Every structure is written in C-alpha cells, then in structure tokens.
C-alpha cells in the first residue's frame, strides 16, 4: 500500500527518538567541554620529546640529534641542529644533543613515522588536542623546551608502550655496562690490549647515517 514505506520509516525515527531518552546506544552525544573524551591509548596527535628526568629536562633528553626523523618526516616539519659540544646523557655517556629542535605543528600530519624510525625512543606521540590558538607563528612552532616532556608523562598517556620502552632501555643499559665491565676487566689483565669498543646505544639500527 502506498505510504507504508514512509510509515515504517517514521516508526524507526520514533523508536530512535524515544530510545534517546533511556537507551545509551541511541543517545550517543558526548558533552565535550564538560566531559573529556576517553582517548584510546594508541591515539596520537603531535610528537613530543622524552626526557628521563623532569627536574633537568634539557640535560636528560634522549634525543641525540641523529636527524633521522628530520629526514624521514614526510611533510618536513622537523628542524634539528646538532650541538657543537657533547653532554652526558642519562647513562653518563657523552652524546651530541639537539641545539635546536623545532616542530611546526601547523604542518605536522600526525603520521607517527618519526616515532617509528627513531632508534633511541626519544620522540613519541602526544595526545593533547586542545591547542586551537589565535597566533599562527609563535603558538604553533614548538621549540625544544616546549616539546620536551618527562618519561613519567609518557607513562601516563601510553602506559603499555612506555613500559616496553623502559624495559628495553634498561636491558640495553645493562648489556652496555656488562660489556664495559668485561672490557675493563680484559684491559686490566692485558694492558696492551686495544681499548674497549664503544657501547652500542642504537637498538634497532646500528648504521646511523650521518647528517649531511
């Protein structure tokens, strides 16, 4: 009969309308500014730099300015300049550090490739998305100081990944110490032996390309 299709449709809308008063599956509105969304652990927005010690963020940056992320970043929104001197990193080993590290969040496409290619677990994805601003230049071009966040923060936003990273870094560190101790022991036994090789820091990729 003509009109049954329309009636059937109206019944569906009526069901949804009535259902929206008692059924959470039909009332899906998230009252956003009052109720913050429950972001999944994997959610990514913009990158940040991890430092090991919150009290001395610049001294304990994991980044060693290898410039891999700068090179691999598809939209080219990372800018790194190497330091001329070296500073001890968290393990006490002398390392180059980034003198300038800038990310232009007005360009970044949140693709996470910088995180995937970083051999030092130094750059991770943040989850802050409430960053609308009236100033395009100063507010969206983030420098080293604005980008750096402590490892504890990383643990709060990506607990699983952070735990994995910590376990891996600890294992690497222990292996390095082990090796250094063995080398020192060997050196003590045979003073004429060649000096111990540098402890490996790179975990995934040993062949770091030097910057152009």
């Amino acid at each position, binding site marked *: 009969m003509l009109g049954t299709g329309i009636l059937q449709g109206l019944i569906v809308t009526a069901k949804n309308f009535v259902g929206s008063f008692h059924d959470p599956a039909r009332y899906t*509105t998230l*009252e956003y500014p009052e109720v913050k969304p429950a972001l999944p652990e994997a959610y990514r927005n913009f990158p940040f730099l991890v430092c090991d010690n919150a009290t001395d963020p610049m001294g304990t940056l994991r980044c060693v300015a290898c410039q891999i992320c700068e090179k691999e970043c598809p939209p080219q929104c990372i800018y790194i300049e190497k330091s001329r001197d070296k500073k001890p990193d968290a393990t006490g080993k002398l390392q180059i550090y980034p003198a300038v590290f800038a990310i232009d969040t007005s360009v970044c*496409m949140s693709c996470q490739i910088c995180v995937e290619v970083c051999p030092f677990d130094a750059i991770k994805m943040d989850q802050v998305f409430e960053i609308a601003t009236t100033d395009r230049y100063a507010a969206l071009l983030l420098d080293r100081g604005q980008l750096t966040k402590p490892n504890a923060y990383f643990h709060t936003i990506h607990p699983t990944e952070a735990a994995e990273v910590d376990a891996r870094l600890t294992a690497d560190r222990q292996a390095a110490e082990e090796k250094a101790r063995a080398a020192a022991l060997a050196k003590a036994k045979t003073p004429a032996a060649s000096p111990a090789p540098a402890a490996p820091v790179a975990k995934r990729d040993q062949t770091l390309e030097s910057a152009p």
Partner: protein
Amino acid sequence: MSDPTPTNPGITETERDELRRHGILLTGLEELYNWGRSHSVWPLNFGLACCAIEMIAASMAKFDIARFGSEVFRPSPRQADLLIVSGTVTKKMAPQVVRLWNQMPEPKYCIAMGACAISGGPFKQGYNVLKGIDRFIPVDIYIPGCPPRPEALLHGLVQLQEKIRNQAIAGPDAPRHLQAEGDCNCPIPECGAHDIEPAQNGALWPKPPELVRPTKS
C-alpha cells in the same frame, strides 16, 4: 566622551556567577550583545577536503555542535557568520574562497581548521597548494591537526566564542563591523600563467616574523 562600558561594574565575577545561579542576571549592553552573538555563530556549509568530514562529524549526534548554537550550517554565504576553512585550499580554489568570504556580511569570522588551511600542511610543497589561507583572508582561530578531532573543532569554536564575548562594542578595539571605515573585503586573486596573482594579500600577509636559523650546510 566617557567610556560607555565601565570595566568595573562594582561586583566581582564570583558574585556575579552566584547571582546568575539564583536566576538574577546582571548585564551590560555589551555583554548581552556579545552573549547573543557568540551563541549563534552560524557557519557556512562549506567543506574543502578531509577536515570537512570531521566538521560534518562535529555536527552529528556524537559531538552535536548544536550545543554551541552553531548547528545551522548555511548553504549561502549571505546568511553565514563563520567561514570554517576545512581542508586544503588549492590555488585553483583560492579565488572562490576569497569570493565567498567577501560575500559574507559582517560580523564574520574565519576558522582555519587543520594543517592545510593554516599553512598548506603536508601538501605545502605542492605546486597547486596555497600555503595557508591567511595569505588572503584574516583568520581568527587556527586549529592544528591533520585532521583535528571533532572535539578540537569544538574547542576552537569555544575559543572563538570567547573572543567574540570579549570584543568591545565601541572604541578603537571594536570589531570591524562596528568601525566606521571598517572594510573587510579582500582583493580576489586571479589564476595566472604560472601562479595565482597576486600570491598574497599584502595588507594581511606582512613579512612573517623573522626567524634566524643558523645556516645549515
């Protein structure tokens, strides 16, 4: 001439909030006017690219932009208050975007949503991509992200409402539409033989802040 909007009405914000909770509204003309304006920002129904889908999502049930008074997406620029530049503006599209902006009546606002609208974003090195819509029209709020979540758009909208609420209705700080010689029509670029001409609106896009970068080899 005395200031028509006294900055100190003799009552603190907390007291005023307390009164408001009891149903007593104390307001000035400026506050009432801006309150009305800020809660009825009607956007133009204008989607460009990926971000437009998130803009539509923001207007749908889950994010419900109607809670902010902005659900009335107008198809015609003549009825709209807000231009949400939601996506990549190509050089071929730039004249049309500027024309739409010029067709909108004052007071009007512009939100650059997403990386492409702000700076060209991931596509900024492309030959047909405009490196930011603020080269041609004045932008009030920038929302970075690729694409920003619908919540981020709502956050940007709240920022815009905040901005509207704090605008004076008289004096030199008043918005364009209340200024006697306020003119917001932007010159429309033309598609030339190799590029759009002019490549930017000189009045809006002055030299960007100087950025001293030690020259890398």
